[in-house]
Structure formats: C-alpha cells, structure tokens
C-alpha cells in the first residue's frame, strides 16, 4: 500500500510534495524544458557562451582587424568611451598598435579550445577511474581512492607551472597538463554515483543475465550519470580557462604574440595605471566567460535534478 513512505514523508516535509499527489506528471523531457525556460541563469549563461563560441568559430569574419597586425602610429588609442576613442578601435589599441577588440575576439579561440579539450580529456580520465572504482569496489576502489588522494595532495598550479616551464607553453601541452591535473572531481563524483547505481535492480538484472562488466558500465551506469558528468565538465572547463589565463599571465602558458586573454592582461600590466582598459577589458572577458559557463553548469544541474531543488 505504501512502499515508499519514507520518501513521501521527506518530500512532504520539504514542502514540495506535489510529486506524490500529482500522478499525471509530465515527462522528464518536458519538465526539463519547462524548467530551462524559467531558469534565468541558464538562459543568460548559455547566451554568453553561445556568443563566445560564435566569436571563436567566425573570428576572421567578426574581428575588424588582424589580431597580430602592429601599427605603431596607432598605439595606445583609448577605447570608444575614453578620450580620443574611435569606432575604428572600439576597445582601443595596445602598446604595439594592435586592435584590442580583434585580439579579445581571437582570444575566445584559445580559451574555448583549451577549456573544452582539457575538460573533456580530464572527464574521460576521471569518469573512467571513478566508474571503475565505484563499480568494482574493494581493492580496485582502494587503489583509485589512493590515486585521487595523491592527486589532491599535489599543488595543481605549481605542478602545472613546472611542467609547462619544461615542455613549453604550447596549447597541446597546456591541454594535457590540465587534463592530468583536473580529473579528480570527475572521479570523486562518478565513483559515488556509480556506487549508488550499482545497487539498483537493473544493474543486478544485467549482471544476472551475464552482461560483461564493460558493457554494464557503458550501457547501464554511464547513461545514468551522464548528467552529473556534464555538470562537472562545465565547472572544469571554467577552471581550465582560468588556469590557462593564470599560466599565460605569468608568461608560462601560451606564448606571445598569441592573443590569450591572460597574456593580454600581462602585456597591459605595465600600462595599467594610465591605460587601465588594457587590463580591464581582457580581465572582464575572462570573468564573463567563466561566469557564464558556471551559470550554465549550475543551470544544467538545476534542470536535471530529480526534485528540482536549487
């Protein structure tokens, strides 16, 4: 008669007891769409990320100038809101006369490439380890927990700086280093989620009919934790973009004259007291992109959460 009264009592207590009473509930997809339309953070974050992606893909079409073109006669022109600003260079020009707007637009390519690839690669590493640990348990799990603990003990930024200083700050090196350093959160979350799913009947059923373990992990476990992985991926992507900016700012990441945003801040630093836009603009670009990705990630988490809890 009442198989799940605990859940009901909790739900009732939470004051959001509609689920128990509402039996003709809409499908999960419809619920998600309805929640998504009302989620302001998701809409704003998603829009900004979309703009950034468009900028990255169509940079040559959108950017008014070549980001590498130096024109010393036009150096340090103020942005449009400053004294002597022109619409030719809405964000002004840098010390070498390069158009800052164009450099910021091209910068999205670097940030997004590194962010997406590092987060994906780290996700593959971390989720694999996490699912294996969570699924097999016992000694396998102990080994994976130990790996996670070792990884957590290392100071990630310093290790990244050291490795990059040895291998040089090329984009592939940065991606690999960050993938190697940011897999732990995936592992922790997927491990816990897998442990939970493993005890479910459908996994037991799959085991009983003799499905291979790889197949169970890929076909039964992975689809059920994909939402959570996507949420972490967005957070890790934001983190990778920030770390790339840090490394480049300290001259150990992407090398000049590539228009990485971190590098732009670094280049503008010596002029910051009389030409502050040189650091505020690229800094705000980092801030808004990271903010939007995080808002998008939080939004995805909210709309896919089972109870719609925020």
């Amino acid at each position, binding site marked *: *008669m009442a198989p799940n009264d605990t859940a009901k*009592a909790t739900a009732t207590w939470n004051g959001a007891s509609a689920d128990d009473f509402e039996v003709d509930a809409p499908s999960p997809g419809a619920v998600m769409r309805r929640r998504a339309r009302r989620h302001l953070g998701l809409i704003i974050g998603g829009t900004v990320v979309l703009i950034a992606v468009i900028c990255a893909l169509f940079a040559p079409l959108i950017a008014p100038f070549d980001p590498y073109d130096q024109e010393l006669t036009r150096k340090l022109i103020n942005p449009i809101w400053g004294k002597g600003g022109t619409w030719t260079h809405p964000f002004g020009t840098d010390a070498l006369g390069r158009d800052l707007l164009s450099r910021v637009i091209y910068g999205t390519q670097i940030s997004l490439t590194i962010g997406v690839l590092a987060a994906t690669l780290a996700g593959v590493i971390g989720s694999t380890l996490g699912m294996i640990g969570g699924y097999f348990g016992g000694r396998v799990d102990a080994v994976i927990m130990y790996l996670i603990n070792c990884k957590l003990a290392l100071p990630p930024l310093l290790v990244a700086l050291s490795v990059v200083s040895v291998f040089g700050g090329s984009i592939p090196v940065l991606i690999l280093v960050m993938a190697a350093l940011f897999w732990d959160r995936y592992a922790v979350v997927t491990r816990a989620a897998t442990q939970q799913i493993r005890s479910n009947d459908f996994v037991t059923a799959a085991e009983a009919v003799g499905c291979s373990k790889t197949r169970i992990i890929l076909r039964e476990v992975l689809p059920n934790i994909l939402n959570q992985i996507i949420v972490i991926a967005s957070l890790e992507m934001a983190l990778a973009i920030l770390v790339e900016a840090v490394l480049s700012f300290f001259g150990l990441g992407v090398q000049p004259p590539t228009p990485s945003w971190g590098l732009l801040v670094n280049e503008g630093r010596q002029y910051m007291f009389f030409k502050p836009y040189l650091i505020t603009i690229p800094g705000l670009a980092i801030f808004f992109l990271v903010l939007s990705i995080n808002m998008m990630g939080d939004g995805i988490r909210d709309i896919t959460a089972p109870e719609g809890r925020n």
Partner: protein
Amino acid sequence: MEGNTPKNTSDHVLDVRNLNVRIKVPAGTLHAVTDVDFHVDRGETLCIVGESGCGKSITSLAVMGLLPRSATMTADKLTLEGRDLLSVTDRQFADLRGDRIGMIFQDPMTSLNPVYTIGNQMEEVYIRHGKGGRKEARERAIYLLEKVGITAAASRLGQYPHQLSGGLRQRVMIAMTLMCDPALVIADEPTTALDVTIQAQILNLLKELQDEFHMGLIFITHDLGVVARIADRVAVMYAGLVVETGNAEQVFSAPMHPYTQGLLECIPIPGKTVRGSQLGSIPGIVPALIGEQEGCLFRNRCSYAREACTDGEIDLETGGDQHGYRCVLTPEETVNHIKKAPNAAVAE
C-alpha cells in the same frame, strides 16, 4: 507517574474542527487536507488510516504546528486540553510541543541527532520545559528508558544513536516523547521502518504506556492490521478528506465507504482467506489534488460510482452513532454490496 486525569473529563484532549491545509507547489495550490474533523480523549487511541499522500501526515504536522512554510492552515477549532492552538504565538506553541503534545516519527534511524548522546537529547527536552535540572532530567530519562524496556538504562544515556538498533532507537524516541508526561502523543507510522517482530513489540509497548500514562494517542498508519490491534476509534482518510470515521468495531464490521471496504479487502485474514485466492486491490490511482476539487474524489476508482458522485460536496453522513462516512450510497445499498464481497466484512 500515576495517570493524572484531566480536571474535566468531558473535554477532549485534542479537538479539531474543519481543518484545512493548503500547500503552495510549483504547479498550483495543493489541497492536502480538507474539512477534517476529529477529537481524541485521554487514554484513547485514534487511528488515522490512509494511503501515501492522503494527508494523514500533514494533518499531524498541522496539529503539531510544524507545517512547512509553504503551507497555510485554517480551522474552525483546534484545541489542546481546552487551549486554543489557533490563537497562540509561535513561542507559546513551542512551549506546548514536547511538553503537552509529543510526536514519534516514522524512521528512528534518522530521527535522533547522530552527534549527541541519547541522554543529552532526552534531558534537553525536560530542561527546556522547566521540569527540573540536569539531575532530575537524568533520573527521569533512566526511569523512562526502563519503562520502554531498555536494559542498563543508565549506561545507554552515554551512547550515541548509531550504537543502537532501529527497535531500540524507536524505544528511545518513545521514552523521549514521554519525558514531560504529555497529554497527547502523535505517532506517525512509528513501526513502518521496523522489522515485523519488533513492530509488534513497539505496538504492545505503546498500549502499555498508554494504560500507565493515560495519554491520548493519535496513531497514523497505512496498515489496517495495526489499526485492528490498537484503535479505539478510526478515521479513514482519502485524498485529504476523512471519508469514514467511527469506533473500530463500526469501521471494521460495517464499513460504509467503498474505499474502506476496498482497504479491508486488501488484507488477508488468517484462517479465512483461502491460500492462493485473490486478495482485493483498489484499481486506479489517487487524483492530483491541485486546485479546487468537486464531488467524490474516490469516484474514478469506485465500482459503485454514479452520476450523483460527480458534483457538489459529499458531506460526512453521520447516523447519530458517531459512525460517519462521505458517500452518496444509502446504508442499505452499501450493505447489499458488502454481501457480494464477503472478504470485506471482518472484525478482529
């Protein structure tokens, strides 16, 4: 603690008239509890029976003043030992909770705070309500732990909840509820989370304690077997409404509402139900209670449903003998139907 009977025995310990609870949810307003009337006397057990989501837990939380913030409650009358609970401040209500009215929850595994000792949590309520100092609280706690059948009570006080089994924890919860000798105890499915053998022990214990402390007991459950064991009176709830109420004898031997009949058909009776025969089940599902409801809410699951069931409000019919039910069928019609379903008419 000898049973201290109230000054005026004709007064109910708890009297609830026309209780309504509405809860705001994203989809609209949930009519969780509608027009509920009941009362409990000293030494009496009222069982509120119903399926998940029928409003029985919300009703008890309303009586305790523990409704979530999204809920609003209205009632014509809500008195505890003659005191009007509708007009008390939050502070005054809190003074009554744990003192005059106590509650035992469903899951003993999570209802005790894991980071404090049993003793701490028991003594706390005694001291809070100004019954005495730490020393008296401790003595009272030991006395009650012994009462609920816990051995080595003094040494249990220093233990943490996770060191006790579920059954023991529920005994601790019961003892804790009795710390201030309340006039009314609400037990919300207190045995559901426990093993069957432990369930019986806890039920017997509650009965014994009731005899000794003479408190009113509201017992909330979905299990009619439990109801038959302990109820003096029964209120059957469905979709936020009390659909049938009466003393245990009346409800079990002559159920007047098709829903109650359906519930009774769902339980097997040892010696009567033939092995392998079909147990009853109620087809269909509980309607969503979002927005205003019309007519009988059971009609979509009721095999006797007719035109008259669809509109208006079905009143609680009472035949003057405290046996009430919300159904358009006349008693004669109902009796005829029951004859066709022999398994339904059963009294313990």
